[in-house]
């Protein structure tokens, strides 16, 4: 038995002087195994070719299609309509600059994040093309990959109370990035250097602990756990020199 779906979609094209922000309702017949990827593309091909939204891999891998689906940030490509009521409301992700309709500019946000946290391996070593690779324990490699699985979809930022209120908050995605590098022995930054980046209200101390980030992460990355670990490490680092020797943590 097929349903008729009503999709209430946020519409606004800032490049069109006649366009005003509003919600537009589209109806279409639900088909078997329908996802929002299929539904939105059908609306574009059959009803309104100007409708803007972002899809790329359509396989839940690239993070392009995050939007607010019935009040919750998520990946549209892998959201099945059968898991939703017949009335579906789609809004663009908050916290990112709107391009038009459901399309937002995540690229600019993330590139400035890379610069803020210096999202790369810091090392004084020089690559030697003739040498064997440096060894790493496989279990550690798997732990790093666990945090590297972030797809920068922006859901955690959109679901974050602090990030919505203050533009300078780094967000769970950036804190997770730092946690990833702290775990990686190839990065030679010290705890103090990491502290300079995230040890403020813009970083780990800005989080209000609402847990929205982890709730909506489509990759189920343990974001709160990373935050907790970093807070502990930083707290220890701050008092490390005053502790008796046997209690001090190594650099």
């Amino acid at each position, binding site marked *: 038995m097929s349903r008729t779906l009503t999709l209430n979609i946020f519409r606004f*094209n*800032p*490049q*069109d002087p006649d366009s005003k922000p509003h919600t537009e309702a589209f109806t279409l017949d639900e088909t*078997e*195994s329908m*996802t929002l990827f299929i539904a939105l593309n059908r609306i*574009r*091909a059959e009803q*309104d*070719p*100007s*409708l*803007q939204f972002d*899809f*790329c*891999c*359509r*396989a*839940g*891998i*690239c*993070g*392009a299609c995050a939007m607010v689906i019935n009040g919750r940030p998520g990946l549209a490509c*892998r959201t099945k309509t059968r898991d939703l009521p017949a009335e579906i409301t789609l809004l663009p992700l908050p916290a990112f600059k709107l*391009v*038009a309709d459901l*399309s937002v*500019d*995540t*690229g600019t946000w*993330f*590139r400035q994040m*890379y610069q803020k946290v*210096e*999202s*790369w*391996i810091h090392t004084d*070593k020089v*690559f030697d*093309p003739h*040498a*064997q*690779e*440096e*060894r*790493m*324990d*496989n279990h550690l*490699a*798997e732990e*790093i*990959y666990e945090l*590297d*699985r972030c*797809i*920068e979809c922006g859901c955690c930022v959109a679901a974050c109370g602090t990030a919505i209120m203050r533009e300078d908050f780094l967000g769970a995605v950036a804190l997770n990035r730092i946690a990833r590098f702290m775990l*990686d022995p*190839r*990065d030679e930054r010290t705890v103090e250097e990491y502290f300079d980046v995230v040890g403020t209200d813009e970083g780990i101390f800005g989080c209000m602990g609402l847990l929205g980030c982890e709730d909506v992460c489509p990759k189920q990355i343990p974001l709160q756990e990373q935050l907790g670990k970093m807070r502990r490490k930083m707290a220890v680092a701050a008092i490390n020199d005053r502790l008796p020797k046997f209690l001090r943590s190594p650099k």
Partner: protein
Amino acid sequence: MQIFQTDLLCIGAGLAGERVAIEAAGAGFSVVCLSLVPARRSHSSAAQGGMQAALGNSAMGEGDSPDVHFADTVKGSDWGADQEVARIFVDNAPIAMRQMAYWGVPWNRVVPGEQTYYKGGKPFTAVEKKENEGLIHSRSFGGTAKWRTCYTSDGTGHAVLFALDNVAAQRGVEVHDKTEVISLIHDGDTCMGAIVRCLKTGELRAYLARATLIASGGFGRLYRASTNAVINDGGAHIAALDTGVVPLGNPEAIQFHPTGIVPTDILVTEGCRGDGGTLLDVNQYRFMPDYEPEKAELASRDVVSRRMTEHMRKGLGVKSAYGDHLWLDIRHLGAHHINTNLREVKEICENFLGVDPITQLIPVRPTQHYCMAGVRTNKDGAVYGLKGLFSAGEAACWDMHGFNRLGGNSLSETVVAGMYVGAKVVEFLKGAETVIKTNIVADAHARQQQRIKDLINGTHGRENAFSVREEMHDALIKGAGIFRNGKDLTEAVEALKGTLARARRVGLASNGLGANPELALALKIEGMVKLALCVTQGALMRTESRGAHTREDYPDRNDRDWLNRTLAYWTNEKDELPTLKYEAATQTFELPPGERGYGGGKIIPMETPPKTGKPKA
């Protein structure tokens, strides 16, 4: 007209584009990467299985060397590869993998001691050496003599792209995302950059560059059913073809991957079979060993896809609302292995099929996956026909893959070619200034501005771009699928000629303002149909079967007449068909044409066998 100027302009910010960008930025040149999407969403990120490089650290990779990798690659290509390029690739691949480790890729590593692995659904043990502990591990992939595929779980492309984009950010490579190249700026002799539409505002810009690189990936989205991301629709190939002087190499060489899921056509990695997964039919019978006793599920992709199709044609496929399919079985690999090394596969199965691969079978069938076809370059990555234009990665026909590429060789190619071609681009930038002719820039910009106006005003008609695309999809799969024949190809070419005429009459239904998606499609639909005509016409003319190009009416591999590469030019804008020329597949033969060792089929030999030998380094 907004103008940007840079030393190097990379069209594409996936692995190949960014690797070249990093090389140039490291040498002190300014670089801008253009990308349809933020760099990390590039289709490279969807590559799961891994990258081939003959490191030989793992127990099952012992005794591996670039020479063995070379032989696998050339056999895999069905001798269509340029052997000099294949040699450059295999020799540099280990360096590139180690460099990626240095840049932060969390490669899976060798765990010493006795390990249980699977082959063809059966467990066996192998002892990983203590002295190799912590070195880069490798898994098995199709068409290889050794376990050679370096991997990070089944998110290799993602992990490598994130590491590389980190380095790009560190080195100050600019990425202008949400931009789309709609034409190259050139005077028939030299490329000077590109005309670009901003996909945030719709504004038209000119990017002027001393060197331009096409690294935009493949054009799988010409097909309706493809594993590719929706952005892989050939935009930059079209810009290259439109110059009239740049050829596409082997446009008919299109790969179908054995395991796209049904429905939705999303890829599940070859790593599933490499790690010991099997293919089953409607009776849950493992059929591949009957066809390929030696390699079974791990023959090359062209062979496995053909055998699967043959088997389904015998009525042994599983019927479904979405057509026939077969089963991929990884249940025996167990929860731990699937949860650590095949986790993306698990997520995809759960999210898109509602299937738990630990306990259930995965519905699969061969699906368009890769273009061996691409912008033809020489071994330095310099594009035929225009100075200052380079290409690398899937976008290019460099040509190490010939008529079939091995799994794990394309992801590897992106960073190896990126490293090698990157160095050549740096040499080029150090060697010469490019003269930018302002009248050429203004003309190119004005021409695109006029095209946009005509599409919005419906000057040439009001054909619907989406419907034209549907017609192209139909014709292309009819002619240029897994099995091809003269009759279907002739019909496809004729149909596509009609589609091309329609594409030339496209006009918008919407207002075209801003980053209007209808305009984006309308701007490239004519070019997409031209690409489809290159594929089908190339396939119609090639009266032999080689690698992924299988002609039912010409089943033999014909080394006597067809050991060559198709070069497809679109000489005059208004032509109905491409102009096809041919060149020798390879100038040197390190490995003379012979049997692949899988796939069967007869070979018509060359009249005079070539001189062989390894070229001097």
